[in-house]
């Protein structure tokens, strides 16, 4: 098999790598934002968020994937029998823990005055968060989110352990099936990952700076 054919096979794994990363990223936003605001504004229950973040900081993604897929599949074939679901579920919740920390920094960046100003015009706490804080939080979290996205692309390689045929899995399959040529598939695989991680983080950072400039920060 020549290099080009190998490359095509690997490229066919890109949609899966991307969709796992993007779904996980979205789950991360949806779960991570509330976690961040709870951590900042609901001090009484912030220990729950703290525990959540600690668990995802302390348990390897691979172990979680194995646990949810192979461990829970016998008990809950739906939804844990679906490898794609498990991948997005685990990586998404892990990302939420990271994103929660990113947003927490961003909330500090936006500043308490904005929250107080929001409440002064009659918003309740959570309505002020929705209308005043959340739109601004993203301006302050672009660089963090850029690296979080890159991290997800890379971590999506872990789903190899539950058998999803994304770029990493395909590299390994090529390496093992080929005539002893281990170098090409992995070098190509690594190059694809670098290509996927590099431009987006760069672009997001630029966009964030432009936004900040636009609103005079």
């Amino acid at each position, binding site marked *: 098999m020549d290099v080009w054919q190998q490359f095509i096979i690997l490229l066919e794994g890109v949609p899966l790598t991307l969709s796992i990363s993007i779904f996980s990223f979205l789950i991360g936003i949806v779960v991570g934002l509330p976690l961040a605001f709870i951590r900042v504004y609901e001090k009484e229950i912030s220990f729950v968020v703290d525990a959540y973040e*600690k*668990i995802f*900081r*302390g*348990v*390897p*993604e*691979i*172990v*979680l994937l*194995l*646990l949810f897929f*192979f*461990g*829970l599949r*016998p*008990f809950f074939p739906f939804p844990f029998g679906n490898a794609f679901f498990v991948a997005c579920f685990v990586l998404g919740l892990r990302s939420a823990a990271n994103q929660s920390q990113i947003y*927490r920094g961003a909330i*500090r960046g936006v500043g308490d005055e904005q929250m107080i100003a929001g409440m002064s015009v009659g918003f309740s706490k959570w309505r002020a968060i929705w209308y005043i804080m959340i739109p601004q939080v993203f301006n302050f979290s672009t660089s963090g989110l850029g690296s979080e996205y*890159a991290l997800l692309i*890379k*971590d*999506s*390689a*872990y789903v*190899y*352990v539950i058998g999803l045929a994304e770029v*990493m899995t395909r*590299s*390994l399959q090529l*390496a093992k099936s080929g005539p002893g040529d*281990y*170098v090409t598939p*992995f*070098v190509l*695989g*690594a*190059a694809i*990952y*670098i290509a996927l*991680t*590099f431009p987006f983080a760069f672009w997001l950072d630029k966009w964030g700076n432009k936004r900040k400039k636009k609103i005079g920060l």
Partner: protein
Amino acid sequence: MLEFLFNPMHQGWIVQGLFLTVEITLFGVLLGLGLGTLLAIGDIYGKKPVKAAIAVYVEIFRGSPLFVQLFLAVYTVPTILNLQIDHAILAFLVFGLNSAGYQKGYVKGAMETILDDQMQAGLSTGMSKIQTLRYVILPQAYRIVIPSWTNEFCSLTKSTATLGYLGFMDLVGAGLAIKGSNYEILPVWIVIGAIYFVWITGFAKIMDVIYEKKRIPGVELAMQS
């Protein structure tokens, strides 16, 4: 359900696995710190080609998954070099080189916040640049870097979980081996996960205490809440 925990052989595997995980992470993270510091200094003081080389290095190691880097190293480096190299050493090198790519950023960021005035102060007393780096800049930068370094430690430890899939007997390797002897799968992974959790969280806690202890009196370092 947890009977595998009382099987001496399985206990042995788990202990062995924990030992390998701990060993390889600690060495990796320390190699990463040393190399990362050199890269940071090179990036600040180096000429253009040096900076460009460092940027490429960082992009390669940060841009691709550690999983891929590990496979690449373990499967291909011995073939290319036509040498028998212990896989554990290769893995350890990959973790160190990879970690250096991240730690370079942390160390450089910390150095930049103190470099301006402290370097001048150092030079004004007659110390050379290297002496000032050694006795003034780095002692302060390393203090600032502790929280990021702790995070790096946590994520590096988690990435070592890939080792089990390269045939190493790390914690995940132990789990895979135990699973192979017909036990229920869920409790095995829960126990393995818990061991990781205790080790990582405990180590992070120790680093927090060190950070507090090493704080320069009167100086508020980077806010942590």
